């Protein structure tokens, strides 16, 4: 029993860090699916791209870590605007199958590009000295960077929620998620709204990928390997909802960490089984109102 309590604390700590990163990456997916009804399986590629921007900005350009982080956001958001305008927007009216296939195609291309440019190996993250140490919490030592992750993600999430719930842009997004035709008829330019929201969601994925590069290793197979988890966050959390996916991400972060700690031989098995059971119980997700 003595070893049990500290391990619970440790699992909670690492699980929350992992969950918050999952949320920052996936929230854009939830919003694009809820707002535009677009099944974007390639969302993970944006997170991977953010990770590559961060690692190469530090190792190749010698950029400081605090500058490399926003750079990951900006570059990924900018690229996603181009993709949205040129490609994604052509498929808004298309069926689910077309969207699924198209985005699987994008994943393949992203994976291949990453392989050619960066090689198969995972990218090391060069953390600055001041984020490297360890901190003591509830009688246990934790890496300082994880604590930074939790604080930084928390700040990002708070800013996002404030933006969606308190600003005009947020009101427009919520109106459009609720009823797109109505939103259009009261003069909201949904076309531009889509582009901006898509860019923001992708940028956040990039930022999440960069922040979390130390937890979720940056390597070419990233978009395939973690796709299921991003989808689970959205599906279990509930489409188009902002807080649902947050709860789902924390749930997954903590339980995945717990499973890997206590029953490593079963890996992700329990997570998937739990997902299946939850979706059977509530097809619209834990906090969703529609399917």
């Amino acid at each position, binding site marked *: 029993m003595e070893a049990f309590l500290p391990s619970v604390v440790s699992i909670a700590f690492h699980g929350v860090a992992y969950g918050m990163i999952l949320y920052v990456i996936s929230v854009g997916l939830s919003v694009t*699916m809820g707002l535009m009804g677009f*099944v974007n399986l390639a969302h993970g590629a944006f997170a991977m791209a953010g990770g590559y921007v961060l690692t190469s900005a530090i190792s190749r350009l010698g950029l400081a870590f605090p500058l490399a982080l926003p750079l990951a956001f900006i570059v990924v958001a900018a690229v996603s605007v181009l993709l949205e305008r040129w*490609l994604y927007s*052509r*498929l808004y009216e*298309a069926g*689910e*199958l*077309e969207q*699924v*296939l*198209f985005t*699987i*195609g*994008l*994943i*393949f*291309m*992203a*994976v*291949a*590009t990453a*392989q*050619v440019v960066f090689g198969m190996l995972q990218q090391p993250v060069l953390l600055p000295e001041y984020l490297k140490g360890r901190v003591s919490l509830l009688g246990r030592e934790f890496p300082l960077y994880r604590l930074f992750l939790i604080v930084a993600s928390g700040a990002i999430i708070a800013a996002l929620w404030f933006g969606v719930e308190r600003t005009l842009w947020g009101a427009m997004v919520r109106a459009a998620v609720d009823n797109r035709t109505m939103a259009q008829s009261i003069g909201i330019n949904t076309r531009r709204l889509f582009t901006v929201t898509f860019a923001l969601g992708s940028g956040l994925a990039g930022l999440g990928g960069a922040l979390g590069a130390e937890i979720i290793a940056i390597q070419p197979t990233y978009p*395939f390997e973690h*796709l*299921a988890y991003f*989808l*689970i966050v*959205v*599906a279990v959390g509930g*489409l188009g909802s902002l807080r649902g996916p947050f709860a789902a991400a924390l749930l997954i972060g903590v339980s995945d960490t717990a499973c890997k700690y206590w029953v490593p*031989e*079963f*890996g*992700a*098995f329990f997570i*998937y*089984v739990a*997902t*299946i059971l939850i*979706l*059977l119980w509530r*097809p*619209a*997700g834990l906090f969703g109102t529609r*399917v």
Partner: protein
Amino acid sequence: MTSFIGYGADPGIRLIEWLPWLAAIAAFFLLPDYLSLGARVLTYILFALSLDLILGYAGIITLGHSAFFGIGAYVAGILSAKLGVIDPVLLLVAAAVMAGAFGVASGAVILRTHGLTQLMLTLAIAVVCLEIAHKATPITGGADGLSGVTIAPVFGAFRFDLFGKTAYVWCLTVLFASWWLTRRIIYSPFGAALAGIRENRVRMHAIGVPVYRRLLTAYTISAMMAGTAGALLAETNQFVGLNVLGFEPSGELMVMLILGGVGRLYGAFVGPLVYLIAQDFLAKQFPEYWYFGIGLMLVVVVLFARGGILGLVDKLVARWRKQN
């Protein structure tokens, strides 16, 4: 292409529909060095055909069709390697039954949902199958794969040879039988009802069709076919690896079917043929470019050529007819 099926369609086999079979027989005599690749292509055609039935005709989108393929492969492999059942026909039947049973069970769940939830469930079920196969090492061989699969001669007479002659003919026979069955199904009232569900589910409910039950039947038939294809792979390779399960083989299969053309029966023939031959020549030499090429192909097909290769052929034929 629903115009070919339904209550006004002639179900007779047209002359051009014999072409693939003639080509397959010609290949047997003309390309003796490629029979192993040929058997692989035939197996994947069967697998793609099973996906076409539910994706192309019934409109069910699944990211986890490999679950049935993998179950078929492992059932045949385990029965042979661990339990000494080596009759190829018996193994196919056992694999089809097991995959079908799993099809009923998982379909009963999946088909009650739709949209993202349905996609997610198909993916999750496929991944769970992969995890189980990965972890149950004593039975499945785990990451090393399942070796020691021995197969008796087909009908007690035709031994599986090194050159793949028996494998090729055996796969061709099974595929022919499955094609004939599938063809009957899609031309039947049941096939017409599936197309109706894909076209307009709301109306199908309103005309009294038990949509869920129809879909479940189709899903089960498709699972049995995919399981048969998996068992064929196990028999002809005499080995089962983890690469038959999970998201990647499902995605790859979708790519093949899209490439050939969805919902037109013969798209399932053209797609795997082109894909696997291209893969055989290109993938080993230029792996990165191969993946990039597949991705690009998918994007291009979705944006510009939704009917796949056969859709393009249709368009060319239509244009040619107009000019003459």
